[in-house]
């Protein structure tokens, strides 16, 4: 009702003037509601992380502070016969790099080619790339058993996990790359390059790929952080990566400081990767 009367009295005034009266009161109530919500959720999101950080600085006696858990990351040795934690870190980082490399070689040319020459396949490719998002990795691992039995004929290394990590990273890499491809006029660029005599290889590697550098970087960073956090498949195929190692340490020594310091370090690392992801684009755009 109030809205109607104000409208009738001052027909020309834009709605912005409604700061007083009903609108003002509603705005104040809304703001109070917003701040309460923000504060409560901020607490909920921050407290577990703070607790983890605090535990990583716990000294030998409860309530004391010490850096020992952080120093242990490189030196931690479980019971005899188990390789130290640092080797799990190393394996995981190597896995992440290999996975990124395979994604780069496998997915980028395929997506460019499909966009240029076989448009009718694009829906199928999209479906296949997004499928791992819906199929739980615990289901995949059941079917992977027989396949990994064959792989283990040739190599027992935990690095062989990269075969399936590429599949897990597909949805994230696909979305990043498809955003990048959508932002440039692939057809015109490639026709220009072709009519100047470039081969298809040159078109992809030297013409289109440099134009979607940002998208490729995003895809790599997302794949990288996915591999850092992967547990299910490595655990059930009896490989040891970083998360599996942290899990088994926590089983043997509950509340060991080193699991908190390492988890926190990994989290910070992933956060830095995502920060790079969100800022790299801004700088490049600024320069161009």
């Amino acid at each position, binding site marked *: *009702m109030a809205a*109607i009367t104000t409208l009738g009295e001052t027909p020309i005034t834009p*709605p912005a003037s409604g700061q007083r009266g009903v609108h003002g009161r509603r705005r104040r109530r809304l703001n109070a*509601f*917003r701040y309460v*919500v*923000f504060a409560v*959720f901020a607490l909920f*999101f921050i*407290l*577990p*992380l703070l*607790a*983890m950080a605090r*535990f990583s600085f716990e000294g030998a006696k409860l309530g004391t502070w010490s850096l020992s858990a952080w120093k242990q990351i490189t030196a931690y040795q479980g019971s005899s016969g188990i390789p130290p934690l640092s080797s799990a870190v190393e394996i995981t980082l190597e896995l992440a790099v290999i996975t990124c490399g395979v994604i780069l070689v*496998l997915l980028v040319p*395929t997506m460019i*080619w499909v966009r240029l*020459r*076989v448009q009718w*396949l694009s829906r199928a*490719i999209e479906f*296949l790339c997004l499928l791992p998002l*819906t*199929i*739980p990795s*615990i*289901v*995949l691992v*059941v*079917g992977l058993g*027989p*396949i990994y039995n064959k792989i283990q004929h040739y190599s027992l290394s935990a690095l062989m996990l990269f075969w*399936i990590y590429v*599949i897990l990273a597909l949805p994230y890499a696909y979305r990043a790359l498809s955003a990048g491809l959508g932002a440039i006029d692939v057809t015109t660029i490639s026709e220009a390059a072709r009519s100047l*005599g*470039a*081969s298809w290889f*040159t078109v992809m590697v*030297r013409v289109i790929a440099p134009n979607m550098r940002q998208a490729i970087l995003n895809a790599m960073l997302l794949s990288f*952080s996915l591999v850092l*956090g*992967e*547990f*299910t498949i490595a*655990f*059930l195929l009896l490989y040891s990566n970083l*998360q599996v190692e*942290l*899990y088994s340490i926590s*089983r043997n020594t509950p*509340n060991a400081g080193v*699991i*908190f310091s390492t*988890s926190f370090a990994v*989290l910070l690392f*992933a*956060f830095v990767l*995502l920060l790079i992801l*969100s800022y790299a684009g801004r700088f490049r755009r600024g320069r161009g």
Partner: protein
Amino acid sequence: MAVASADQTGARPTRAGRRLSAPSWAGPLPFLAYVAIFLIWPIGIVVVDALKNPSGAWAPSNLSEFGNSLVRGYFIGSLKLCVLSSVLGAVLGAILAYAIASGDPDGPVRRIYLAVSGVLAQFGGVTLAFAFQALIGPAGLLFHASWYYNFPWGIGVIYIYFQVPLMVLVFLPAIDGVKVQWREASENLGSSTWQYWRYVGGPLLWPAFLGGLLLLFANALSAFATIQAWENQIAYIVPQQISTSLSSEVGLSNVNVADLLALGMIVMVVIVMTVYALLQRRAARWLR
């Protein structure tokens, strides 16, 4: 590189003549082969093996095991946890999304919450269980929650930690799509706040909300690492039981238990995602 492309330029007329011999659909073949081996084949193995007995003979009667009270117990456990964490996660996420959307679209609060949501929605796994263990576990920093090891409440709270950010990411675009003009129009027709939400805002956002809820459900269904690090002695949900039956031979005789349970999960996921796709289409109608 320059030399190579110069050569190719010279050879172009002949190459153009021969282009038919390498059909353009051959380009995505390596990618398709890779996906077939490491994604389609495992899924196929799960479906086929679920219908066979361990000696390899066809036994569709395996499906009757879904009526087994033990097997049903795991699915009920999964349902409990997924419903709890997705309903609470969706409601809380929607409230947070509304609080974010009603603020300044370029303000720092919105940017921070979006960036943090992007990180936390991916933050699951073993590390998350450690963080909550440090906060409210037996030696918890904040307090020792007596319900920490209670299923589904203890693990449900941990799941909500990654469900809420995911809901924010999914639901925020829908809230942003609600136009101020609709609110003004209904006010000019004399509606109260409650009437606006009951007859205008609610029905508009309902499909998007349900869609988000289903996505959260699927997300909780496939999570395994967090609950495994939280409690690894008792199997409450399907993924845990799959893990147990993969690593031990104990279980129902004459049935590939892991494959059967995995098949059950595939069916659930397919149902959820199909309804999700339908709802998304409906939600998209107003939010263009």
